[in-house]
């Protein structure tokens, strides 16, 4: 199963050759792959990348909205904070956050279950 998974992953990496810089994927070695995403050469830059431990459900005492009080249970994930440089130097950058579940495959687990042992 493991060998088959590798073949699948390598196969898809070969197809998207431009993105084959990483030998392993997040599902294989979450910490290494997560940290390797820092940096960037074009206008898009990742300023920080850190693997987050799974967290438990919490309900805040107060919040602006009912649903805003709920902090849901989350699995381990790679948290990326990045920005996109503006064209006009006087304009602020676009800041963004991307959360990559380390046990997922970037698509819904039910769809990817065949190719992932993590689901």
């Amino acid at each position, binding site marked *: 199963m493991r060998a088959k998974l590798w073949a699948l992953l390598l196969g898809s990496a070969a197809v998207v050759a431009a993105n084959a810089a990483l030998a392993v994927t997040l599902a294989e070695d979450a910490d290494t792959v997560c940290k390797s995403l820092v940096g960037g050469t074009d206008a898009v830059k990742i300023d920080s990348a850190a693997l987050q431990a799974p967290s438990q459900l919490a*309900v805040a005492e107060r919040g602006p909205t009912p649903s805003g009080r709920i902090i849901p249970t989350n699995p381990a994930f790679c948290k990326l904070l*990045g920005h996109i440089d503006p064209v006009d130097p006087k304009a602020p950058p676009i800041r963004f956050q991307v959360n990559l579940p380390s046990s997922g495959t970037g698509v819904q687990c039910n769809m990817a279950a065949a190719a992932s042992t993590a689901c």
Partner: protein
Amino acid sequence: MQYGGGGFNGVLITGLALPPAYPFDKPSSLARGFVTYGTDSGHETRQGEPPQVFALNDEAFENFAHRAYKKVRDAAVTLMERAYGKKPEKLYFMGTSEGGREGLTMAQRYPDDFDGIFARVPVINWVGLQHAGTRSGLVTMGDGWINPAQVKLVGDAVRAACDKADGSDDALVQNPVACKAAFKAESLRCASGKTDDKTGDQCLTDAQIKAIDTLHATYKFPFELANGLDDYPGWGVSGEDTPAVGPTGGWVAWWLGTAPPAQPPAPNNGIAWIYGAGGIQYVFARDPKLDVTTYKLEEHKARLLEVSKLMDSTDPDLSRFRARGGRLIMLEHMADYAQSPYAGIRYFESVERKLGKTETAEFARLYTAPGVDHVGSGAPANVDMLSALVDWVEKGKAPGDLEVTDQKVEAPSFAVLRALPLCRWPAWPHYKSGSVTEASSFACAP
């Protein structure tokens, strides 16, 4: 899965909150295997500064209008490829309020980029909304302001006029469209047309009735804006007295505040005034010192047209989004006083006119939730639209009437206090029999 923003943005959307309208007890999107992401849309609101200051910079404003969401979407896809060795199979966008507008603008401007979009209470007809919100503030500047006790009076009067129309005496107006036609603020007029010690908060003055009629009325522009629209629909009725906490609530939260509108807007003013007056100053007139009472929109026609093109998100041509298999779900809350639910209803009907009713039903849905405020309080509002959308996009299972719940904010069970059918526009829940807290006691019908 991309999360939309809110208000004027300027706050980083982490992608870690519950998706819009999501039931409190369901696993998070990350736990379900989704990559999630969000953005501040290209500006950061500084403490103590009006939220519209960024609009003075063109690039920051265009980022807010649409560019940031596309740029971040593309960046996120690249990161997913690097992390997982392949592209995501499907992409989803879910947003509430401004985030709902962002969802619709993605379907309109970038139809190839998302497979499923959920737009909840979208703030479309944006130029109209800012002007109508400002109008609602101006009409309450003097004697027209309505105090919280009188707001309760109006809420009670609306329920007395319309609550039982669906067959149940349940303190909920199930058909707020019919109620808007039935309810007359005039019925609460003080005998003398003004209040005195004797009548107190038990009736409304002529100025207050005029303010309510203004809130309910269409806002008309003297020229056409984007997509041939020249007005903003008035607000509806019901949920006037939904308790206010920040953006949660009815008239006090969004329209009236706890004090009459001030210049510059004060924190205890209604949010529509804070947003609208600041919008007039920073977005349209681009004059932070402008006295809003002296604003003449005719003098800023070119800027209004420019902003309308960027922000209104009313383009009914979703043919490309439809052709690539995109699926859209819209949800309007009928007791929303932040934006008028009639704007989204009108937009959906404009898509039906453009593409055909049957064709539109193949890829788009509009649901309306009675009694719910802008953020999901006041009546049952929670629904797993993520599953509805995924089932439609990935399994071809089109959603029919759904169910909304009102849940206690208490872990871990988040007990359901009340459930109702969530009907496809233009149907409403009608009472059949049984407990009014059970969805099965109601059926959707026009």
